[in-house]
């Protein structure tokens, strides 16, 4: 969540307006950075001892454990920033395991010369996102690299969550006949970041969909839905999620193109740039594969923006393909992009 930058940065900017090599040296400057920036912002009793690691209380259930690194450029974009992304990315990966996210670590690699106020803004945003997602940052690390050897801030977060369901959530549980639900419109995050990075101006403001997904997943599980598989639609977008699940499960899928909502601004941007909205990144969207007879209940639990976008088919003699029924009533297959999506010439 980007909010107005009101809080005064606790390290006086006139002392050290930028990150110095000494901030990673383990001496007094490192201590200053921790005590004046990280501690007050992430304040909690598990972090407070500043021990080599956090000692966590026992949790009642299986644990999910994940890690992710965040290198997005630019650091700030419409609808989010590197900080909110670093929290939500790991929170969402835990949620996709069916877990309730609990504790996160945060590792920072800072580039010498980074304005302290940018670090402060990112860290503040992490704290807001953690609060919104109901997780605590309980341990961390900071390193500083020479100017030119980093890109402002790189963040790694790892996280653990507790699995409070007995369901096995993953491609192995997907069955023919399962219904595929999507929790909202797609493509906003990728286009928002690209617009900011490349200085593209579109008529409509496109904001990232960056959001924690722990709550909607908990709603499904608490509502008693027999969730078979969950996947968030980050890099590679809806395309990668569908193709990967289909391949892992060994089952074909059919998707109704018209059921997948894409904002007009995102569609327009994709048309201009020659991108495929299905393959553009999201940070607050996921698909849930559930038995057909629970589809309506699941859709209701996910809220008004959710929709049924397709079904899992019975395995045939062919390798599993994800087939898209187009608005014209024709069919095409959905395939992974071979690398980064590149804007077309004309």
């Amino acid at each position, binding site marked *: 969540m980007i909010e107005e930058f009101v809080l005064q940065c606790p390290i006086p900017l006139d002392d050290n307006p930028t990150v110095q090599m000494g901030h990673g040296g383990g001496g007094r400057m490192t201590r200053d950075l921790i005590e004046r920036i990280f501690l007050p912002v992430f304040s909690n009793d598990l972090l407070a001892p500043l021990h080599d690691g956090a000692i966590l209380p026992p949790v009642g259930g299986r644990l999910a454990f994940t890690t992710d690194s965040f290198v997005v450029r630019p650091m700030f974009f419409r609808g989010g920033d590197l900080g909110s992304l670093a929290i939500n990315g790991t929170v969402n990966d835990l949620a996709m395991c069916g877990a309730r996210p609990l504790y996160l670590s945060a590792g920072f690699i800072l580039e010498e010369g980074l304005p302290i106020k940018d670090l402060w803004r990112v860290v503040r945003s992490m704290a807001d996102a953690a609060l919104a997602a109901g997780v605590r940052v309980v341990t961390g690390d900071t390193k500083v690299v020479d100017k030119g050897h980093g890109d402002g801030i790189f963040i790694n977060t790892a996280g653990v969550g507790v699995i409070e369901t007995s369901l096995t959530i993953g491609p192995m549980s997907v069955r023919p006949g399962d219904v595929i639900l999507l929790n909202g419109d797609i493509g906003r995050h990728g286009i928002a970041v690209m617009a900011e990075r*490349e200085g*593209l101006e579109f008529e409509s403001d496109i904001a990232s969909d960056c959001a924690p997904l722990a709550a909607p997943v908990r709603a499904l599980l608490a509502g008693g839905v027999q969730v078979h598989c969950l996947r968030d639609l980050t890099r590679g977008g809806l395309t990668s999620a569908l193709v990967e699940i289909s391949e892992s499960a060994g089952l074909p899928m059919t998707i109704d193109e018209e059921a997948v909502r894409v904002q*007009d601004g995102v*569609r*327009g941007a994709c*048309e201009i*740039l*020659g991108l495929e909205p299905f393959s553009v990144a999201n940070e607050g969207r996921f698909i849930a594969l559930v038995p057909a007879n629970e589809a309506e209940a699941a859709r209701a639990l996910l809220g008004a923006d959710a929709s049924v976008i397709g079904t899992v088919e019975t395995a045939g*003699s*062919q*390798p599993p*393909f994800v087939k898209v029924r*187009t*608005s*014209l*009533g*024709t*069919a*095409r*297959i959905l*395939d992974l992009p*071979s*690398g980064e999506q*590149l*804007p*077309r*010439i*004309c």
Partner: protein
Amino acid sequence: MKYLDEYRDAATARTYAEAIRRVTTRPWTIMEVCGGQTHAIVRFGIDTLLPPQISLLHGPGCPVCVTPLEVLDQAVSIAARPNVIFCSFGDMLRVPGSQRDLFQVKSDGGDVRIVYSPVDAVQIARENPDKEVVFLAVGFETTAPANAMAVHRAKEEGITNFSVLVSHVLVPPAMEAILSSRLNRVQGFLAAGHVCTVMGYTEYEPLARRYHIPIVVTGFEPLDILQGVYLCVRQLEEGRAEVENQYSRSVRREGNQPAQELIREVFTVVPRKWRGIGEIPASGLGLAPAYAAFDAARRFQVDSHHAEENPECISGLVLQGIKKPQECTAFGTKCTPTHPLGATMVSSEGACAAYYKYRRHETTTPSPPATAGGATP
């Protein structure tokens, strides 16, 4: 979405498909010239709406695909030099040269940047007076005005650290090369709407007359293409060979005159090599003598470079409509978008990549087991 949804309407598409079926009495082979049209045809499965007598062939209108290997090698050679900022449209970066592509140059430390307009490259030159800024100016008549504008502006402003590596191509000479080939199967053309928006369509009229072939200037949305096919089939069935304008919401007969003037000012018509096809006389644009100082090939002395294509790649035959992508032995096996042998597999507008992306399952359908010793019919 306005100006988009109305051209993707399913009911109207069915009406057009039905109209095409009604007027078709015999087999016809029609080529869509532009890669953007090929992309739309496979993305929306437009060919599957057509009666079986109509075959669509995919033409040479993908700028990425027809840019010769030499030019890519020249680009790689220039981009790898210190003190150069090399700017290009995004989809040229993954096109393999003989040894490597521009992405690899970038990962090896070259300053390679994606720009969305050639004028952005001029701005980069303004901001980096101590660097040489080079723009890879490829494409058809569609991209020529903007590329001409970039060079024109650089000259006007006296920006001397800017140059362009030019490999511009022209559509009508390529259509004529296809028509005059003894292997030609094309009976009607859907001409490229964007190219005609710039150039108009008077230069297609002599082609239609000389080769007695209908040419329909066609847009890029599903309904545009269906309507283009309808108009083309109707001409074929009635024995007419005229230039018709389906894309009248964008194209006028005389085209965009100021854009054409700018092209004539900065460029001159030259013979040009097309990747996979070979040299076609008067089929390209090079810098006019007054702008020769902006020629990157000369400035960096890479103009004598020569390169050989991979012998297994049949992209030349695909680009001329003689073969379909699946007829290539390497298609989907040795040649994929991740490891392309030829350019038609690289660009999303390339026929091979489009078939791989949307139609691969048709080629991977297991063939019925061959009976021992028996001949297949």
